[in-house]
Structure formats: structure tokens, C-alpha cells
């Protein structure tokens, strides 16, 4: 994970649930490259065609509420979303996104800071998000160490892989 993340902003309203990110009809798809074609199909129909690597999602309250489907953050990662920022997140999505190594930041009042197409700059360690277009900025409490470690490792798969590897070594903890 980079400490400074910059990208073009896509804005979303409150209560965008997982059905609006990846609809129930696509849940049997497990290839992220296929899934990404349908990401935000209901909430933001123009997104999948026009998204660029590094784009940042800025949403209002309760982003990605609803189901536990990891298809939602998987599709976002596959299409190259650089970070997801929201006034608040639903808990399962928040865990899923961090587990997949997507910088995910809760900042109260952040949605009102941006318009569609603005450029955002996020300083993860310092806890600051800025709108480079207007300009304006907000502070947020930096993520707990536990979560920063997860992002640093590139996600949960890599973190557990290292842990299991350390255990398997002679003298490693059981």
C-alpha cells in the first residue's frame, strides 16, 4: 500500500447496497475479470466502461450495506479502484475490502467534500484527505495498526501465508 494515494473521484449517495454494486444475478461468477464488467451496474451504470486504474470511490453513509458478497470489493479491485472512502461503511464490506488490500477509509463528512471528477489525495499515515480540485481537506483518525499491517502485507492472504510459513519453520511458534 502506498502512503499517499491520488486519483479521480467517483461520487455515490447514501445506502448504496451490495446489490447495486454487484447484482444477485452475477453471484455465480467467480472470475474477477468477468465480475468487473458489472461493477456498480445499478448504482453508477457508466462506471465500468469509463473507470481508470487508481480511481477513488467517495460515498455517503452506510456504503455497501447488505450482503456479505466479496464479489463487490473483488470487482472493484479488479477494475483498479485505488481507494474507497465513505462517511460510513457497512461492516462486512469494510472487512472484505481491507482483507483484499484495498485502502478503505471512513471519514465523516467526506461525501460533501467532493464532486464527480474531482481529484482526491489521501495521506494514510497522516490521516488526511484533500480535494485537490477545490481545494479543501478533512482529517481522519489513521487506521489501527492491526489494519495498517493487513494493508501493508497486501491483504489477508499474504498475512496468513507469512504466519503459516513462520510456524512451519523449525523453532517457529506452533
Amino acid at each position: 500500500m502506498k502512503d499517499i494515494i491520488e486519483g479521480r473521484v467517483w461520487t455515490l449517495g447514501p445506502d448504496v447496497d451490495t446489490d447495486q454494486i454487484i447484482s444477485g444475478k452475477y453471484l455465480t461468477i467467480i472470475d474477477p475479470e468477468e465480475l468487473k464488467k458489472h461493477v456498480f451496474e445499478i448504482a453508477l451504470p457508466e462506471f465500468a466502461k469509463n473507470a481508470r486504474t487508481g480511481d477513488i470511490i467517495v460515498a455517503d453513509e452506510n456504503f455497501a450495506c447488505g450482503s456479505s458478497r466479496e464479489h463487490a470489493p473483488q470487482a472493484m479491485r479488479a477494475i483498479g479502484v485505488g481507494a474507497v472512502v465513505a462517511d460510513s461503511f457497512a461492516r462486512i464490506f469494510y472487512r472484505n475490502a481491507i482483507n483484499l488490500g484495498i485502502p478503505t477509509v471512513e471519514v465523516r463528512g467526506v461525501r460533501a467534500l467532493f464532486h464527480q471528477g474531482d481529484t482526491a489525495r489521501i495521506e494514510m499515515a497522516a490521516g488526511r484527505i484533500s480535494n485537490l480540485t477545490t481545494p479543501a481537506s478533512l482529517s481522519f483518525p489513521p487506521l489501527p495498526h492491526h489494519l495498517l499491517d493487513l494493508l501493508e502485507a497486501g491483504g489477508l492472504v499474504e498475512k496468513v501465508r507469512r504466519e503459516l510459513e513462520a510456524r512451519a519453520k523449525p523453532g517457529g511458534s506452533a
Partner: protein
Amino acid sequence: MTGPNGHGATLAEKVLARASGLDHVVPGQIVEGAVDLAMMHEQGAQTVGPFHQMGAVKVWDPDRVVIAIDHWVPASTEGAAVLHRILRKFAAETGLPHFYDVGRHGICHQILAENGWVVPGDLAVGTDSHTNMLGAMGAVATGIGPTEMAAVLALGRLWLKVPPTIQIRVRGSFGKGVTAKDLILRVLGEVRTTGATYKAVEFSGPTIRGLSMPERFTLCNMTTEMGAKTGVVDPDEKTMDYLAKIAKHPMHPLTADADAQYERVVDIDVDGMPPMVACPYSPDNVRPLTEVVREHVKVDQVFLGSCTNARIEDLREGAALMKGRKVAPGVRFIVSPASTPIYDQCLHEGIIETFTDAGAVFTNSSCSACFGGNMGILAPDEVCASSSNRNFPGRMGAKEARIYLMSPAAVVATAIKGEIADPRELL
């Protein structure tokens, strides 16, 4: 009992302290909890890749892992068939014996409940958001994604932030035609879809003590719609009776202290409460059913099913109203029991015949029409009355379709009338 924090502990705090081997925990603390039960449905197919990428070979405890396929049973698309095959292969390779495959299948949460897989004091996780339902056993039960599940299968534990608890204290008695579903819709109207995000919801008070386990399942099930990490009820005689013959592992009954500290207390009196309905497009857009009835909302489809309300008690209640009546012309009424044993029970009790005689379709057990990916899918602008749990845009098909969430009794009354109806008119 006053603990080291100067006050007692909530039920969720006690369960998480037990799971993490600590004397006590406080909200906001990050703990590593030992998992008592891990459940996967089709989404578990996405667990297999990360599990291998982690370098894991063995599952930490195969006797604490349940696989219950439910979204597409039997497989209705090639994609679903592939997911099922991935899970069967994984179960065979890693030696997971508790696989509820086609023929013994049911909705995953109901499978956990009716087979005693989650017991008081447990920390349970599942790859479905409505895993919260099992908190009714006096457990902390919550939904996680498949990558996280891979870590749980490898390590037998996961990190959790101890949630603050919202207490819902309920008193009074339900009037005729008013059910636990109406109560949880009422609570949703009060707490809203974001009101319990990251939090635990604890139901208490005399009304809750009087509710059956199935009714408590309905309440805890929809704490998911408030954003809650889990919904819990103190275990009591009813919990113990329910689990007496079926508990799959030792119980550790814990209850909330009288002086526990709650972030918020919501008092609800159900005396005189009417049936409730959640209108499009959010489960917290809740109004008294009587108001909506006056608007003559015509329906195209009615669904009696889902993990929220498709237990034998729900289907009996529905069948009692349906008996001797017909589904209104032009209405498609889908009834889907929550598990295969419930299907069998309906067969023995004549419930299937009651519904099919009336013109309903009685399906095999599955999540069915609830999630818009298998059957009973809605066309644009269609209207559906449903006993399920979500009515966000696109939930049951087209994004313009409108879904009204109601009790089993109210959906049956609606199927008969052809527009949103009050079940009390039929009692």
C-alpha cells in the same frame, strides 16, 4: 455484577471475552477470538482459492465447519453447478464431513439452528450476512467474506473489534395477527439501517422472554438490516429446551449483567402495536400496515420464504389463513420452506396441498426469490409482497421493482386480496 470496568458486561462482551480467553473486554478493543463454528454456503467456493494461496493444507477443526448450499439448489445455472462442485471437492480433500448437499439441504442459517450447530456462548461466523440470526442462541454470530473465511479455516480464529451494545427492551403482548416480524420492522423503523453499524443488538424484556426460538430467530436475523455485527438474546429455558437433544457441542450459557453498560437503550411497548410493513426501497422505510392498505397497492408476486420467515411455524400460520381461500387472479404466490425437514413436515401436515390447492407454487427449500438470482425474479415496475428481509433496489430482480416486507400472515392476506392487505381482516 460489577466487573473491573466499574459496571457489568453485556452478553456480546461476555461471549467475546470467552472466545478470546480474557476475563473481560471493553467496546473498541480489538481481540482475537477462537471460532466455535464456521459455516459456508455457495460463497465458500471463493474461500478455496485464498485457502490454498495462504499455503494452508489442513482445516483447523473439521467438526466445527458446516457447508450448507442454499442459493441455487439444485443448481439452476452452470455457474452455480461449478460453485457446488468446488465445495464438494474441497470438502472431500480436506475431510469436512458436515456437508448439507442436495437432498438434505436448506437455508444455511436454518440448517445451523435446527441441527444445534450453534449453542450458547459460541462465537460463530458464516459467509452470509444473515448469520446474525444464530445470535438468538445466546451466541455472537456474524457474517464474514470468503477470504476471511479462508483465514478462519486455516487458523480457527479471527480478529474482532468488541462492539458497543444497543439494548432493545420490549414489553407488552402482541395483538391478534401481530408477530415477531412486525416487532423487528418496528425496531428497524426506530434504529434505522445505519443505527447499529458495527454494534451488537441485545433483545431483552418480558416480551422477549415469552417468544419462541423461531420468533427470536426472526428478530436476530434482521439485525443485519440495522448494520449490526450481531443480534443476541440471553439464553434461557426455551434455548436449553430447543437445544437439549440436538446441541452439537458443549454449551456455555452466559447472560448480560443487570448493570451492563449500553450505548443506547430503546424501549418498545407492543401493546396495541399494529402489523408493520417496510416499503420500498429500504427495510427501515417502515409504516403501519393499516396506512398502506388504504392506498390499495396491487401486487404481481407474493413470496413466503427466506431465512427470516419460512420455518414450520410461519408456514402453519400462513396455511391456516390460506385454507379454503384462493390466490387472487393475476398474482404469483411462491412458498419456499427454509429447509428440507420443514418441507417434509409441510407434506405430512397437508400444508403443501393447502397452498397448491389455493393456486400457490410450493417450491423446494432454498433462498428462492429472496435475492433475485435464482427464481421468482421481478420484471421492471412489478410489485412484490415478501416475508424476506431486504427491499433495496434490484434485490429481487429489476431495479425498478418494488418490494414490501411484511409478516407471513400479512403476505398470505395480500396473496388472497391481490393488494397489500391486513391479515386481521381474515382472522
